[in-house]
């Protein structure tokens, strides 16, 4: 009888002490990051069966547990992973945006100044000053291409080191989580099933840190070890065994860093495509969506500008009467070929730019693969392919295969990735700027130079199509009887009926021109070499017109428009990433609030608990006193 009352009192004192200790622990850790508030679970002692029925035997502490909800925790992790992924993406994307859109150091002002210099040469073709200025602006343009690409390369190096650091950080966390798993399983065992709260808190904190780096999902095993999966379900920790996360060189382009997972002592397997969310996911998305495409697009711009300018420059004539040569020197796309061949294969690949179809050039990598009978070239940006057995012409390039190929042979080609770096000016003498047309049109004149044509016909818009097809001088005499123009020997050249054909555009002997008006019978026109024609600016005008010609993307955009589209695309992605960040930040705050609502310490609440448990302790102490008084009474009764 007596012992049970004392037992109840002491049991209560002990229980209240534990409760007060737990409350004190909560108060002390109110500002500890990752601390989950703890609560003492009080439960009744087993009641005693007496003749009067079941009598309660007091209170005992069943355990101390965390106020924790795995679902809230996983929501918090998910929104933090999304938020940090967006913030990393936005941070790096902003840097690219700042490089490209800078109104002073971007490519746009350099291209404007270059074409303004071309116009100056058109305005004054014999001026050595204007020509020299053009060469100087061309040099500045090339420098600017290199500068912009160089800054992207610098960003690439930042990316590489940031990725390496993040992966090594994530790997450390994975190893630590696995070690904690072991500790926790042992702690559960040693405590007979009681949760090791501080170890559990510590493990949750590590998983949250990992969420900042990559998206994490977890599954708790029956033995309380936590299985951790990253990204799209890649196993990082299974039970007590961690895998190793590390940075590996890509294949076949070894300079491209990838993330790999090594299980046990085997070779690492590339998992970059499966890693989403967090800093690592944000970095990888950034590289795939912005960094590499931007380098490719700038390179493509350099090649299209250079090749188109060269094509037109070769149609002109310089101050010394020579046909123009290449104005720019372009990169060699064959320099960036990565073979991935089957054993014993001797396959080779050479890639050249095709100036005639250069407007088809895309900003993409390409993969050529052999299936046993033919080669297929795939444009990696959207998967379009073209197949053939001989040389394949695709997207403004010619792919020439050689050697003996085996099925499964592959080549990776990056034709434009380094084009901006390698662009150079090929002309160093201002006299070699081909501003004039190499041909001119003369109407027939007599011995005194007086024009003799009687009709009203005029031939205008003389342009060069193919200098290799010239056959000069080209005499064109109109014969009314046959309604056509003939050469000096009576051979027909082209028909012309003033009533129905005017104006008529004709391409003949490598030149094109427009005929209009009504020629009289015997009227004669000659297209001859433009010797001494240094004041002619025909080719300079044509070169200047390249600024507003649709040269890029299958003849749909001008150089400026293509650059503007690139800036705009990066800008939109940056803005979207910022918007995603803002909304994910709000979601993360909400998830944090919901999490803290359950697991956070409220000091006022703990203060109230202190009062509560203190009163209960005082009351239990009173019971002891009462019991003592009862016992004294009993003793007094039997003295």
């Amino acid at each position, binding site marked *: 009888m007596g012992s049970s009352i004392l037992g109840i009192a002491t049991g209560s004192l002990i229980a209240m002490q534990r409760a007060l200790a737990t409350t004190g622990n909560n108060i002390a850790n109110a*500002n500890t990051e990752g601390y989950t508030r703890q609560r003492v679970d009080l439960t009744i002692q087993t009641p005693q069966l007496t003749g009067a029925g079941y009598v309660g035997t007091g209170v005992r502490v069943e355990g101390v547990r965390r106020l924790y909800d795995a679902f809230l925790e996983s929501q918090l992790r998910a929104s933090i992973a999304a938020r940090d992924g967006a913030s990393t993406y936005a941070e790096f994307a902003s840097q690219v945006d700042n490089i490209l859109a800078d109104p002073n150091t971007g490519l746009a002002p350099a291209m*404007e100044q270059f074409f303004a210099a071309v116009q100056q040469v058109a305005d004054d073709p014999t001026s050595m000053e204007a020509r020299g200025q053009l060469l100087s602006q061309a040099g500045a343009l090339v420098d600017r291409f290199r500068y912009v690409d160089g800054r992207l390369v610098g960003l690439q190096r930042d990316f590489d080191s940031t990725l390496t650091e993040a992966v090594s950080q994530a790997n450390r966390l994975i190893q630590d989580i696995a070690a904690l798993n072991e500790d926790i399983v042992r702690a559960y065992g040693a405590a007979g099933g009681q949760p090791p709260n501080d170890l559990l808190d510590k493990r949750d904190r590590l998983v949250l840190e990992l969420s900042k780096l990559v998206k994490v999902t977890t599954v708790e095993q029956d033995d309380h070890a936590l299985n951790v999966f990253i990204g799209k379900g890649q196993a990082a920790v299974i039970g007590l065994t961690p895998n190793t996360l590390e940075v590996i060189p890509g294949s076949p382009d070894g300079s491209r860093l990838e993330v790999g997972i090594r299980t046990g002592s085997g070779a690492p397997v590339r998992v970059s495509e499966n890693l989403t969310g967090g800093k690592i996911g944000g970095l990888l998305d950034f590289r795939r969506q912005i960094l590499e495409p931007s380098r490719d697009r700038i390179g493509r711009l350099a090649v299209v500008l250079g090749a188109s300018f060269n094509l037109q420059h070769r149609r002109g004539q310089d101050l010394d009467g020579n046909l123009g040569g290449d104005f720019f020197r372009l990169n060699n796309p064959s320099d960036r070929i990565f073979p991935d061949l089957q054993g014993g294969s001797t396959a080779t690949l050479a890639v050249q730019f095709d100036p005639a179809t250069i407007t088809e050039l895309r900003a993409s990598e390409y993969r050529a693969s052999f299936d046993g009978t033919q080669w297929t070239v795939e444009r990696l940006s959207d998967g379009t392919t073209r197949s053939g057995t001989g040389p394949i012409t695709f997207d403004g390039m010619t792919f020439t295969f050689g050697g003996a190929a085996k099925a499964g042979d592959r080549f990776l080609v990056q034709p434009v990735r380094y084009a901006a770096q390698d662009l150079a000016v090929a002309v160093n003498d201002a006299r070699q700027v081909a501003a004039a047309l190499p041909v001119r049109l003369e109407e027939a004149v007599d011995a005194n130079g007086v024009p003799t044509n009687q009709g009203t016909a005029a031939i205008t818009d003389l342009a060069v199509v193919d200098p290799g097809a010239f056959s000069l001088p080209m005499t064109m005499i109109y014969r009314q009887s046959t309604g056509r123009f003939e050469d000096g020997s009576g051979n027909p050249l082209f028909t012309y009926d003033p009533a129905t054909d005017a104006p008529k555009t004709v391409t003949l002997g490598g030149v094109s021109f427009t005929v209009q008006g009504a020629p009289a019978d015997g009227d004669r026109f000659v297209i001859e070499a*433009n010797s001494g024609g240094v004041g002619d600016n025909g080719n300079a005008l044509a070169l200047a017109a390249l600024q507003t010609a649709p040269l890029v993307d299958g003849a749909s955009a001008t150089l400026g428009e293509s650059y503007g589209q690139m800036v705009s695309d990066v800008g939109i992605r940056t803005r979207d990433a910022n918007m995603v960040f803002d909304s994910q930040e709000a979601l993360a705050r909400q998830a944090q*609030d919901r999490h*803290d609502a359950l697991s956070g*310490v*409220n000091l006022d609440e703990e203060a109230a608990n*202190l009062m509560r448990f203190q009163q209960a302790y005082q009351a239990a102490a009173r019971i002891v006193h009462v019991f003592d008084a009862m016992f004294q009474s009993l003793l007094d009764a039997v003295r």
Partner: protein
Amino acid sequence: MRISSFQIYRHGLEGILDQQSGIDRLQRQLSSGKRFSLPSEAPVEASQVLSFKERSARVKQYQNNILQARNRLGLEESAVGAAVDVVQRVRELTVQGLNGTNSLQDRKAIAAELRQRLDELLEIANTRDPNGEYLFAGGRSRTRPFVHDGTGRFTYAGDQGVRALRISDTRTVRIGHSGTDVFLSAPGSGKSAFSTLYQVAADMEAGTPNAASLDDIDAVLDHLLQVQAEIGARQQALDAQEAINADYLLGVETARSRIEDTDFASASIEYQRRLIAIQAAQQAFVKVNGLSLFNFL
């Protein structure tokens, strides 16, 4: 919903920090006059501004081309005007010389002046611009176009080319005429201006001026006047395009300013508003964080 103590603190702090970053952004806008200092702050607007600047630069180059074209046409206009004066004087002299009251001596004197006028016309035809290019040599602008061998043989060493300049995305304007066009072509007579003047001078020297040569002179004169008219038309085209370009530049500049420049009125108002908000947030933070049950235990 239950709130933890840390949450109370964090919410209050986040409010203050958010207001601070907003105030910082507004301060930068007000002091720099630009809505954004880095393109990444307003990426879509930044790319629009870039496109405006590109168009604006190109049209400014066209205005520059127009200036150069106007200079060239002005030179040509003076030269052709001088040529017209010469030919008109020749006509006067010819009419005077045709008069029967002239003696042979008189006619020889007139012939001498006629020969001087011919030389003058030759000089005009060989005019050079300040850079040293011959105005009337076509594309062969560094070669002296007109040569007289002294015996009535005139050779033209230029060609029939004409230079054009671009004054808009869609228009070019020719800034000259070839020597053939101005001085060798005289529809109606089939003779060049020089041959006609030489012939008149030779006939006058011999004392047998030909009344029919007046027709030839008129043909030359008419053609020169027509060239003048063409020059005038081109100059008008330049003026018209210059005005169009100027309007376009103004429009682009206005659009750019609307996007890029700070709207000071609304920025100042928002700045004031945020100052009040941050003060309120700070005071609320202090108040709320001072409340605790432990103050009463």
